[in-house]
């Protein structure tokens, strides 16, 4: 089975802080991988290196056997890597629909000076996604007026426009109240479509969510990978319980 994403001996330092040391990961098509770890463990750094926002000090990252280490975020996006953000990065002054249309426009292979951004095909595509993420009701509202949860969903929906190979979700449920978390993840998963070929990598703190939705867990601690296995196994290891879930404090 061929890896969608491969990280080879990836290292990154910020001054004295080690954000990534010898990361070696292979992610396979269709996997739902959850990155866990306490704050500053290197999860987001890893995500940022995949999307090209940060460049590794050493090592390469391969997408479908193509080295993407040196590429710009834009190029990587065009190769089929999309991401959402811990704090949704949206266009507050525009309506939900227009936000989706921006995403659409960016994915149009040939940008055009006259082709209307609001042409029917684009709107249909956008509406379809909005529908999958249960956002249709907000369709023509200004994003600035929307509640946090809805923004999270829109953020992800936009990332999904252009149907990426690999989708990176940075703490999809952060800032969402406990009782909303599960419905939210349900919507997201529904939005992804269970059968879809989209491989998902999501950074998550809530272990119940991880347990329920991840097919595989990669645990980080101070830039190292301390566990990489199915949720059951990974979450049971001492390191994870000590450094991530904090169950074995003081031993």
């Amino acid at each position: 089975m061929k890896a969608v994403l491969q990280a080879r001996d990836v290292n990154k330092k910020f001054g004295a802080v080690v954000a990534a040391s010898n990361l070696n990961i292979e992610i396979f098509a269709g996997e739902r991988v959850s990155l866990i770890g306490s704050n500053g463990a290197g999860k987001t750094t890893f995500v940022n290196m995949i999307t090209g926002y940060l460049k590794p000090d050493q090592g390469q990252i391969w997408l479908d056997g193509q080295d993407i280490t040196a590429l710009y975020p834009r190029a990587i996006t065009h190769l089929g890597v999309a991401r959402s953000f811990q704090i949704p990065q949206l266009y507050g002054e525009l309506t939900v629909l227009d936000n989706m249309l921006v995403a659409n426009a960016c994915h149009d292979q040939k940008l055009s000076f006259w082709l209307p951004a609001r042409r029917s095909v684009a709107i249909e595509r956008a509406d379809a996604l909005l529908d999958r993420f249960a956002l249709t009701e907000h369709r023509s509202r200004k994003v600035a007026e929307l509640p946090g949860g809805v923004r999270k969903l829109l953020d992800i929906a936009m990332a999904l426009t252009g149907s990426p190979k690999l989708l990176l979700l940075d703490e999809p449920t952060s800032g969402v109240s406990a009782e909303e978390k599960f419905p939210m993840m349900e919507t997201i998963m529904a939005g992804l479509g269970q059968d879809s070929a989209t491989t998902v990598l999501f950074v998550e703190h809530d272990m119940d969510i991880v347990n329920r939705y991840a097919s595989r867990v990669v645990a980080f601690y101070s830039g190292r990978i301390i566990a990489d296995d199915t949720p059951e196994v990974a979450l049971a290891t001492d390191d994870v319980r000590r450094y991530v879930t904090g169950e074995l404090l003081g031993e």
Partner: protein
Amino acid sequence: MALALVGALMPKWLTFLITMAAANGLVSLGIVVLMRGGVVPFGQGMVFAIGGYTAALMFNKMGITDALFLTLCGGVIAALVAAPFAPLLSRYRGIFFAMLTLALSMVTYGLLMKLEVLGGSDGFNLGRPTLLGYKLPDDQVGYIMYVLTITVSSIMALLARIYFDSTRGLITLATKENELRVEYLGGSVRYAMAINFILAAFCGGLGGALAVMALGHIEPGVSFWTTSGEFVFVAVLAGWQSVIALFVASVVLEVVRSFSSSYFPNTWQMALGIFLLIVIRFLPRGIGSLWVKGGTR
């Protein structure tokens, strides 16, 4: 067109005033193109000057007199001159973009003052243009320039509207709010900015050429920072939402300026200044906001 017919009935000074307003409006249209992307150039006087000098020089030195052709040349040359700077400028935002464009226009100003082949600081005159091979009679020339100018402006306004609604246009609008996300959605911010700068230069060039042919004179002053300031003001006064608002705003400014300077010769600048303040204070989103609802258009 309605406006063209109205023009026939207007007193001459008003047709001329609107001609100038429309020509200047084109420059401001260029500024709006950039404003939608979140940057405001304080040196559009430069492209105005380039367009103007192009038309004037081709007229005097090369004997090309067709108004329409000269207008197009003005636009094209301005765009060509602007093109090399576009990639550089696309890196800058906010006040730095404004200041760098200002510096460029002031350098242009200095050069124009120097080059005596271009008439130095006094500038020079150009004769009466022809249109599609026809000579323009004395009593008609004003009106014909008027029709030509508003026609060109209307066409550009339409094209601008189409561009603003296109995929590129929407991305520009998005860039204004969140460049990072545009990049992460796979759009190129700098490319969009560079394109917009060149388009803005094209509009400015057209405006410059038209204005110069209507005035029959060109001088370096048009590249001075105060001129650029007025173009920006019209753009702000109009707001970035409506294209038509732009030309309304331009006319309003011209009317206020001309009446204040003939009725308060000693304090017309003060009158103008107070007018600017009132508008900026009470029409924060520009004249356009008077009839365009919502933020997305």
